[in-house]
């Protein structure tokens, strides 16, 4: 090949590379300003004693030690796992069930789909405020009104330390389950109908078809959605913040809410807030790593 033209092409290639980077530059700058630099700054701040927005001095892991040695951290950590537990219990299977049910309807499927998705469109904050009236412990609380019709005396919900977390998860599930169900429905509609036909001819009941054909087919999707759900519920913050302020007695305090409290809740300790943020990040990364490890293993078997 002629050396000259290779060089020209290489030069052309370099020019094109530069142009491409220039096209990406605005987006990269924004990502840097809004995502990467603040994240880096968070990590840096977590290693400093801060006074308001200033870094006073480097203190190594002292913020982490101080934050983690406090009772409310342990409580928030436990609570966050409790949130995750309830979220999986209430919120993981329900979308699959909904998808299955809606998927089997022969008429009105569009309507059911619409109804299921609608709550997901509503602003999260509005949803929380709306539901706070449902779970009011007064006689005028919506749930108490409904129970009253059945002759049940008024109950307290948000002041019950055993109930607050499940209640918040119920609200989050009400908002999100329908949308997740539609993702499952799309996954289920990708299953070749001939598989069902063949199984039916072999005498498999409807239930057997669900267990042996449908569920295995969505297993991978379910795995992905599971990890996404865990990641998202781990960051739960404004729901308890608005609904219970983390109470009663920190029974619904989440890790991210603890971070917000350190930063904006009066003590304005940004160093410790950042330490909590970094801890949450590390936990999330660990969980993702574990997930992708198992996921890879599974793919190997396939």
């Amino acid at each position, binding site marked *: 090949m002629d050396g000259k033209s290779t060089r020209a092409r290489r030069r052309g290639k370099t020019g094109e590379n530069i142009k*491409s980077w220039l096209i990406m530059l605005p987006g990269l700058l924004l990502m840097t300003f809004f995502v990467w630099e603040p994240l880096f700054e968070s990590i840096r*701040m977590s290693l400093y004693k801060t006074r308001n927005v200033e870094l006073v001095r480097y203190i190594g892991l002292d913020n982490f030690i101080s934050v983690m040695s406090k009772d409310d951290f342990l409580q928030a950590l436990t609570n966050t796992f409790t949130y995750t537990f309830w979220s999986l219990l209430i919120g993981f299977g329900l979308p699959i069930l909904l998808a299955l049910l809606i998927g089997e*309807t022969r008429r009105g499927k569009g309507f059911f789909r619409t109804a299921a998705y609608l709550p997901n469109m509503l602003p999260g904050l509005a949803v929380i405020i709306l539901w706070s009236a449902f779970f009011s412990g007064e006689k005028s609380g919506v749930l108490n009104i409904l129970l009253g019709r059945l002759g049940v005396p008024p109950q307290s919900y948000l002041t019950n330390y055993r109930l607050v977390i499940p209640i918040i998860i119920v609200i989050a599930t009400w908002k999100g389950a329908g949308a997740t169900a539609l993702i499952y429905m799309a996954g289920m509609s990708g299953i070749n109908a001939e598989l069902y036909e063949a199984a039916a001819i072999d005498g498999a009941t409807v239930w057997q078809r669900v267990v042996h054909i449908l569920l295995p087919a969505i297993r991978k999707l379910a795995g992905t959605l599971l990890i996404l759900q865990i990641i998202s519920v781990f960051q739960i913050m404004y729901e308890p913040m608005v609904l219970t302020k983390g109470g009663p007695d920190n029974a619904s305090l989440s890790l991210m809410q603890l971070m917000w409290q350190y930063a904006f809740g009066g003590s304005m300790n940004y160093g410790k807030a950042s330490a909590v943020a970094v801890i949450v990040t590390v936990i999330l990364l660990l969980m993702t790593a574990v997930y992708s490890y198992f996921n890879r293993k599974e793919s190997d078997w396939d």
Partner: protein
Amino acid sequence: MSHPQRTGVIREYDMHSPSVRAGYGVILFLCGIMVVIALFPLVWVILAGFKDLKEFVSSTSILPRSFDIQTFVTTWNQLGIAKNYLNSFISVAGSVVCALIFNGLLGYGLGILKPKGYGVVKKLVMLSLLMPTTISIVPLFMNIQKLGLGNSFLPLWLSYGANAMYVILFVQFFESLPSSIIEASRIDGCSQLQIFFRIVLPLSKPICSVVAIFAINAAWSDFLLPYLVLRGGELQTVMVRLFVFSTEQTVNADAMMRSVVFSMIPPIILFFIFQKQLTENSVSVGIKG
């Protein structure tokens, strides 16, 4: 008229079996319950909006005493929600534009141009997908203050130009475009930007509409960063206002419920306009994402 191939587990001939037919009845019944649970809270909050404070706090009836639309009008005027609506619309409009342009261009770079070293950036973007945005809200807010961008829409608009999820959605879509078209236009001497605007964008309507709808909804619902950036000022959006109501307790519970209704109207309208895209397109996008 021929039906498209049905996808459900229950096949046509199963319906001859009485037990399957009964099971199908149960399915319809459960779907009905789901509809009630999904819609009742919405209906209820509208009904609650007709109550006055005393009724809202004391009454043990779901239905209000009267259906006077004037209660809504009064609250709308008293709280000056129109102004907040306008702010929200401005905030949403700028956010959508930024979301499409900046994430789109970055996605174009990572999905089609792929210049030398793009892999690192792509990994970084993927990784930021896992990072909750609230984690870095403290330093971000400080940066915004340092640049003197407080009390302005600009940082909010631009923040939608830096959304890892939208970038990934664009990348995945662009990667699925047939490379032959792009190659052909490159040979025709189109510059990279020309290719983007003349070839790629027209092909990308589905992904653009999905990102736009996501961005509209997210920008409308967002309140944490907007609350910090817009302070207590003139530019407060509807959701910031609602958050302020819920923390500063300046509004009575009944007016609060009406404010909740106001905050839900635009998303619901949006939903019914883009119902199909939302329940079909975004779902298929969601699967890949």
